[in-house]
């Protein structure tokens, strides 16, 4: 087996040193009833060529986003990732290193985590950020748990702007970590949500997403003010981090915790994971923050260096008293984020955001002109919602038949609500060309004719 260096001669010599007759002897503590002599019922070893062939066959059964006009978003976005990003994250020293518990020989990892934390704090308009969470949805769940700790209250209010699967993650935590939730119904673009009236003296936090699930941008300031007046926190969720290159960051609108999905910068779609959860907050809440933190310090020679710090919040020190059970961050994905954002810089990042917005605006205008199709949004970034005169799922399937991946039917994520059946959520990023937009408009126009 190509990954196993020991030869039979080695094994015999080593058994001799150990003083065992066979490897079986080393497994003698396994109860007899559980010992298996034969092989499990799975295929035997294969060469690199065979494995590559089999997996390539499987991969070829999927429609890759890059092969078609592509407009799918709703929490994961296809962006162009510069070639150097994927090259750099595959360097052995980054790829095959462990969590930097030995800082003397992991300054590379630690320094990029410090840079990542700085970048995330800058983008979100917050004071501190951690070294990342699993993804946006779990970061959102952790934000609510943190708000409960900070306020010593046990009731959160979820806005109808929140991604339904993010809300699902919070619901799950509420059920098992025993706190109360009030969940507002989906709020369509243009409609107002009276979330402020739901905030009481018992509310730990209000969770609002911007851009919202349907793409609409929201002014968080009045919600923040109302929350603060009652001693509650505002948790802002940013599912598309490129948006902050163009729109006001939640930190400037009074958010106390900002969580987000960082996949858009540096990371591919990967059918949903691995992604990188962003988590930022105010300095005063630092000690209640979950997850890894990297801090600056000096070494024995007085040189600047970095270490994991404030680990007295973490499970490996605090065990059942930890702020969270989380052990890992999303190391390599935050490295990809940090490298891509370094390539973009202020100029590239803000321009990328403007290109995204421009492409979405152009597309919205084009689609709105089609019979049976209406754009619902007033203010959006790179994603908007269409109201179709037909069930969106049916339209999306028909578009896929025509070789266009046209978006996400709201009904895929909001179940049992007939009012969203005809809504289609459409995203457009820098990857889309005029030809893509024309192809989409043509396919949609044809489809609407067929279904109307």
């Amino acid at each position, binding site marked *: 087996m190509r990954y196993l260096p020991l030869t039979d001669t080695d094994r015999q010599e080593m058994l001799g040193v150990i003083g065992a007759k066979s490897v079986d002897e080393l497994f003698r503590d396994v109860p007899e009833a559980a010992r298996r002599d034969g092989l499990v019922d799975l295929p035997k070893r294969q060469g690199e060529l065979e494995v590559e062939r089999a997996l390539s066959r499987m991969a070829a059964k999927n429609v*890759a986003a890059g092969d078609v006009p592509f407009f799918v978003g709703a929490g994961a976005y296809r962006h162009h990732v510069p070639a150097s990003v994927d090259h750099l994250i595959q360097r052995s020293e980054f790829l095959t290193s462990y969590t930097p518990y030995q800082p003397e020989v992991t300054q590379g990892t630690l320094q990029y985590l410090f840079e990542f934390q700085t970048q995330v704090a800058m983008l979100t308009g917050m004071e501190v950020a951690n070294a990342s969470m699993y993804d946006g949805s779990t970061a959102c769940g952790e934000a609510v748990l943190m708000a409960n700790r900070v306020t010593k209250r046990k009731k959160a209010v979820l806005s109808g702007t929140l991604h339904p699967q993010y809300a699902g993650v919070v619901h799950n935590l509420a059920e098992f970590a025993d706190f109360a939730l009030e969940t507002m119904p989906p709020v369509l673009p243009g409609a107002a949500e009276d979330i402020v009236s739901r905030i009481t003296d018992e509310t730990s936090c209000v969770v609002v997403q911007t851009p919202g699930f349907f793409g609409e941008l929201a002014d968080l300031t009045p919600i923040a003010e109302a929350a603060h007046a009652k001693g509650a926190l505002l948790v802002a969720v940013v599912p598309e981090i490129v948006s902050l290159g163009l729109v006001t960051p939640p930190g400037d609108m009074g958010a106390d915790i900002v969580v987000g999905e960082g996949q858009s910068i540096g990371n591919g779609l990967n*059918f949903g994971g691995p992604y990188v959860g962003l988590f930022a907050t105010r300095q005063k809440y630092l000690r209640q923050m979950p997850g890894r933190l990297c801090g600056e310090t000096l070494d024995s020679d007085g040189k600047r260096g970095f270490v994991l710090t404030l680990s007295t919040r973490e499970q490996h020190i605090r065990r059942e008293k930890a702020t969270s059970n989380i052990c890992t961050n999303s190391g390599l994905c935050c490295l990809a984020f940090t490298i891509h954002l370094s390539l973009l810089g202020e100029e590239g990042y803000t321009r990328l955001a403007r290109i995204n917005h421009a492409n979405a605006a152009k597309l919205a205008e084009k689609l709105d002109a089609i019979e049976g199709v209406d754009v619902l949004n007033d203010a959006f970034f790179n994603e908007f919602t269409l109201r179709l005169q037909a069930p969106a799922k049916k339209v999306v399937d028909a578009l896929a038949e025509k070789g266009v991946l046209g978006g996400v039917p709201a009904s895929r994520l909001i179940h049992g609500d007939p009012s969203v059946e005809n809504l289609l959520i459409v995203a457009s990023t820098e990857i889309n060309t005029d030809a893509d937009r024309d192809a989409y408009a043509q396919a949609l126009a044809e489809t609407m004719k067929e279904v109307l």
Partner: protein
Amino acid sequence: MSGMNKQGRPTSFAESGGGAERTTFTGNKGLELEEPLIFERDTKGACGVDLDEPEGYQPKIGKFERKNRIGLPGLSEPEVVRHFVRLSSKNYSIDAGLYPLGSCTMKHNPRLNEKMARLPGFGDVHPLQPEQTVQGAMELIDTLAHWLKTLTGLPAVAMSPKAGAHGELCGMMAIRAAIEAKGEGEQRRRVLVPESAHGTNPATAALLGYKVDTIKGDGNGRVDLEALREKLGPDVAAIMLTNPNTCGLFERDIIDIAKAVHEAGAYFYCDGANFNAIVGRVRPGDLGVDAMHINLHKTFSTPHGGGGPGAGPVVFSEALAPFVPLPYVVQKDGVYDLIETEDEAEADGTSPFGRMTAFHGQMGMFVRALAYMMSHGSDGLRQVAEDSVLNANYVLASLKDVMSASYEGPCMHEALFDDRFLKGTGVETLDFAKAMIDEGYHPMTMYFPLVVHGALLIEPTETESKQGIDLFIATLRDLVAATKSNDKERFSGAPHFAPRGRLDETAAARKPILRWQPEMPAQAAD
């Protein structure tokens, strides 16, 4: 002179007249290159991408346009590449050398797996594309699920958990859901955790509101079955047990433990962090396990990536299978279907406890893990367990005369020592481990498990050659001998040859500096 080569050039450092004290203008030392923060490399106007300003559109941003500069630095592509290449050179990695972190399973990461994960059909697929366009992605998940179920002998698996600790959370949630379905939710509020457990176990139980009750060991590195029986009762929800355990030992009484737990009406959660030692040889299902997470980044070699991303699928027994969370993949007549809603699940005969995460889990890790499994096959995976156990026992046997082994062997995939062999030397576990850095090795796991004093836990893994392990053993023997010499500086000052000396962690925690700050306010720069 033996120190000269044919050209008369000195071959040893001392003869060249150099000294460790020598400093350089740049602070660099040859290939060891200092690198400032990316923010300190800012050049106004530089950019690492070429993007054209968009034209011909009507902005729809409303009143939400950003007003302030963000403060991101500008760098060209070569500068960015150089920055991160220089940073990378300050890291130890499994590709560069033995990484004997006990309970972490730092094994070789095949590059084939990286290549497969980047196939556009896997890497460039959106989680919410129409299901008919992602049949191959679901086939991959279903195939991996089949391998995991077969290797563990358990009938169900939750694929979505994003890491080991997330898997623990998932497993314990399923246990609580099962207990609640039996109407015993109010009554069963206690979770038993051995004192040798990973910190995530008690943290997970506590997050779910359980009272954590610690079980004493038997003094030989295993759970005391009698102590466990005494703790069991109608208020116990579950036991969380690692097997092989964190002392590197197989829990001999595990079948009796499982029986006792089940007789008390509780569930058996197994922490699968150490599955590498038994994969292909022992199926946790045959041991009475009800739920176990599998760290794909350990046993199945998805790269650790400097601390993630991981992946932590959880296998379940028949009793817990109905509670597996959303989403999951089913296959009927060759067509794959994603069960994403409670209604779909009900029609499928399950009652999921909820949802762990948005989307469907760590697909990128699934591809890598499956490529690894297919490469090894049933025979190769069994060999993985055997070679990992053989390598660890070889280390144990070769060092136990000079280092203090904590327990009688044989061990499984990792060898545990404590600090008795350092007694009276003035050298502590930490110093010993830091001196290994100077010898070109990453230290072993230190001070864990907590059940022995000054623990040193060594897991060589199966991907180390005998030659490599022999040098490692010789190095540790030399270090042990040195602890008894007068050269204490070798330990107390270690590492001497790393990019950084020991870092002041106390100062870092006392006055945390967690981000770079510009020296002048950003507005002044504008």
